[in-house]
């Protein structure tokens, strides 16, 4: 479905990605793990069009999408739920969800999906008129996920959805990610919490300083000694 071939990208003269190649197949849940500054967020930002690749090819179902603006990427069915939630603090919860559906024109479909989000996240319904900035961290993460879903993506990318959440909420977030995949949406997830990410995913890529160091199934990476040493603290 999504394929990156030798993709490099960076910020000004700083190169953050060096020839990254990876693939996400239809229906898969793929994790991207790695240390701070490894280039995980940069990978997602390059896919979603916030950054333009300097070299390499990005294709979706064989069609080149590298360098397209974010709007075009979203229109092709890739949603990006960014690092740090990034809800619009002064928009209401309902408006934040409407922002997720900005490119859609099917009023009835949007209304149905809004109802589905409220059913799935009852807290959001209770707070639908409230400014998103007044929500708790966990609620904001739910809102960010729901907002990304409002575009009805075929592929959804999560950047550290569990960051800064209490353990019980972390569990809940991973359960939601699993549910999303179960309904047929393909998932590409960046996680610091390598242990959880590897257990959850079908396949994973380990990034280090802007390139892919290792790839395999979640179980393979969990068993790999250098992954255990470097990212799981050796203590499993």
């Amino acid at each position, binding site marked *: 479905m999504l394929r990156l071939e030798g993709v490099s990208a960076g910020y000004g003269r700083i190169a953050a990605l060096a020839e990254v190649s990876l693939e996400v197949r239809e229906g898969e849940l793929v994790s991207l793990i790695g240390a701070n500054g490894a280039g995980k967020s940069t990978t997602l930002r390059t896919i*979603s*069009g*916030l950054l333009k690749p300097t070299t390499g090819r990005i294709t979706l179902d064989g069609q080149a999408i590298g360098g397209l*603006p*974010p*709007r075009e990427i*979203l*229109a092709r069915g890739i*949603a*990006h739920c*960014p690092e740090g939630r*990034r809800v*619009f*603090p*002064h*928009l209401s919860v309902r*408006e934040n969800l*409407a*922002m*997720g559906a*900005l*490119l859609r024109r099917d009023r009835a479909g949007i209304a149905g999906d809004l109802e589905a989000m409220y059913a799935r996240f009852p807290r959001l319904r209770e707070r639908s008129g409230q400014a998103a*900035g007044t929500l708790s961290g966990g609620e904001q993460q739910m809102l960010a996920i729901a*907002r990304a879903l409002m*575009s009805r993506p075929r592929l959804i990318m999560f950047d550290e959805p569990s960051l800064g959440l209490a353990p019980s909420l972390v569990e809940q977030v991973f359960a939601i990610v699993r549910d999303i995949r179960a309904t047929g949406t393909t998932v590409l997830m960046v996680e610091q919490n390598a242990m959880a990410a590897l257990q959850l995913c079908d396949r994973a890529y380990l990034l280090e300083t802007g390139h892919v160091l290792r790839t395999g199934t979640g179980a393979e990476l969990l068993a790999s000694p250098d992954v255990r040493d470097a990212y799981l603290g050796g203590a499993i």
Partner: protein
Amino acid sequence: MDQALQHLVNGTVLGGTYALLGIGLTLVFGVMRVVNFTHGELYAFGAYMTYAAVSLLGLDFYLSLALATLLGMALGAAIEFLLLRPMRRADIDSTMLVMIGAALVLQNGEMWAWGGVAKLIPNPFPGTPLVVGPVSVLPLRLFVLVVSIALLLGFWLLLDRTRIGMAMRATFQDPETAALMGVRINWVNSATFAIGSGLAAAAGALLGPVFMVSPTMGDLVGLKAFAIVILGGLGSLPGATIGGFALGFVEEFAGGFVSTEYRDAFGFLLIILILALKPQGLVPAKERIG
């Protein structure tokens, strides 16, 4: 007391146009982080275009006001496209310098095109004031107030109730995430600058017939627009509205009770006073759009 009531009415009329000016300026700052030094010149531009349409082309007065506002929006869109868009990644100081340059060019252009002599814009309203109890108000001024308030309301509805308004607010708050939602940031910037400029031009078109039109009229008004925006808190729309009316009242009351010659100075005194007491302006940051 009666005199106070009269000043209240006059202050409201002035305040409505000041609010338009302030909102236009604060909107551009809130969305684009651009300090728009051309704002006062767009005000003058609106007044001159009204003059041109009414006096030179002989067009209908109301049509001329609308035309001047639309031309102001077009000029704003052109400034955004030609000067600001290429400077999207530049720092705020460079953008400021370019905007100061643009303001000078506009002002000298006005001087060149219209000459230094002040112009009068004829208007279709009777010169006899409407008298209600102790208060008298010229029909033209009443018209200015009604249109200002209609524009303020229309602008607020646009921002609060429409998709484009929501996209604009989202862009003020987080341009990158707005882009991820499919917002065309360039488009929002153009629209924002065009609307901000249109509000300034509308204020000029409305006040042009009340006062005189001269090439330097943009200077003082530009300064006042900054005063209003700083008074209300940079980037705050409610703040700019309140600030606009506050400045109108202060000028009117100080002009009436203290000294007509120094009426403009009192507005700036108020700003110094408020900033000394509340450095963040009247409306605190959390209620802001940006």
